[in-house]
């Protein structure tokens, strides 16, 4: 017990608290920028069973922030390399490495075997998968996410508190939010955010202080400011996930988050014979488009007005620039409806229609 003496002398932990830590089981999703500090502190703290799932291998560009790895780990699977390092750090705990991708097929079984899930993933598909699987298994999720110099931390699905979907009900349009590999990240930032996640895990295990549930903490590394925003539970979002239990394994999270969206140019779109255009902009937005059979359903109402869509026709969604329409295509995909997003939006459609009518009158 010498290993944990600095814990045990804390009256808030003591031998009983340390015993609790050693009986707990924590699964960490992703051994990357966030996963590394989380794993390092939880292994050092003596968490009895630590699970690590990551399909990726260590690359040189990871070493700037993924502090469990060294040059000797290059090319190794991250879960396996992390286990190797952590076994040296604390050989008294049980460490399970899962060198595979988290999917709808393995998530529920894996989550059932653990008490707490830590989300250190780096994409929206996995984040929504983690959220939904955790709701279905009634496990708390210690969430962390980063962007350049800023981080977010929260504990979701804890003690009847809100979930990730209560904050962000649906994934953003594919490609609209970049990840670290695309935009860069200050190396120390995941160290700070990951350490905060490890702290929340220990608070949950020890019943210490107040868990960051019903709140999202936002940290800015440039200003060193933190701000904590409160959020309520969206029971509807919860119920939707619970009701979808039987379809969970068949759901394609990557398709709804990082999917390749069917896009079409205005020139191609107006040549389709059986086509229904759906203007997903708000009613007041200009330019107005006058084209036969065009229906106007603002994006935020699309979900509730599916009956307006003509499934016999090719559906082409457009907005101002082609971003909201991508989101609309994703949304329809979730309802099993195939559609296209118009490249360049209303402006390019208007131009194309003008060119066509000029051509027509020239022919006459």
């Amino acid at each position: 017990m010498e290993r944990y003496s600095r814990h045990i002398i804390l009256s808030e932990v003591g031998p009983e608290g340390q015993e609790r830590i050693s009986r707990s089981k924590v699964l960490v999703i992703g051994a990357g920028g966030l996963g590394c500090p989380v794993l390092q502190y939880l292994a050092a703290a003596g968490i009895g069973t630590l699970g690590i799932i990551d399909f990726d291998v260590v690359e040189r560009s990871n070493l700037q922030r993924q502090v469990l790895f060294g040059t000797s780990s290059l090319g190794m699977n991250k879960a396996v390399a992390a286990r190797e390092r952590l076994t040296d750090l604390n050989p008294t705990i049980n460490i399970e490495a899962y060198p595979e991708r988290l999917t709808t097929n393995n998530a529920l079984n894996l989550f059932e075997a653990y008490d707490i899930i830590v989300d250190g993933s780096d994409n929206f598909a996995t984040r929504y998968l983690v959220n939904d699987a955790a709701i279905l298994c009634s496990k708390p999720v210690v969430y962390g996410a980063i962007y350049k110099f800023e981080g977010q931390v929260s504990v979701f699905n804890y003690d009847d508190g809100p979930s990730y979907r209560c904050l962000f009900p649906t994934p953003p349009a594919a490609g609209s939010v970049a990840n670290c590999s695309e935009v860069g990240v200050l190396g120390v930032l995941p160290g700070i955010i990951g350490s905060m996640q490890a702290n929340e895990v220990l608070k949950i295990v020890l019943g210490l202080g107040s868990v960051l549930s019903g709140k999202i903490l936002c940290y800015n590394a440039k200003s060193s400011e933190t701000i904590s925003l409160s959020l309520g539970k969206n029971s509807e979002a919860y119920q939707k996930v619970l009701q979808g239990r039987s379809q969970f394994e068949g759901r394609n999270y990557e398709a709804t988050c990082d999917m390749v969206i069917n896009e079409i140019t205005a020139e191609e779109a107006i040549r389709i014979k059986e086509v229904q255009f759906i203007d997903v902009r708000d009613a007041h937005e200009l330019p107005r488009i006058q084209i036969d059979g065009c229906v106007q359903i603002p994006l935020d109402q699309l979900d509730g007005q599916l009956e307006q869509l003509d499934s016999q026709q090719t559906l082409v969604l457009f907005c101002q620039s082609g971003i909201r329409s991508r989101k609309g295509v994703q949304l329809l995909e979730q309802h099993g409806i195939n559609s296209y997003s118009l490249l360049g939006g209303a402006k390019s459609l208007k131009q194309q229609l003008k060119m066509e009518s000029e051509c027509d009158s020239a022919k006459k």
Partner: protein
Amino acid sequence: MKLNIKYFGLLAEVTKCDEEVVEFTETTLSALLEQLFAKYPSLKEKDFQVAQNNTIVSGDAEIMESEIALLPPFSGG
């Protein structure tokens, strides 16, 4: 009234500032968003939630407090 609006993550790249004071004469969240979209058209294409006085608000909340924050989702890890 004067609103102090904070922009997080990539929203600050759209607005080119982390924070600004905005004069607001309407009363609802949707009116505030319209005003911000008019000022920053590409903000409309972004996903975010709005907090008023450090509490996330939804639907068409009434704007009664001067501290507003726009929070986008982050995916990085």
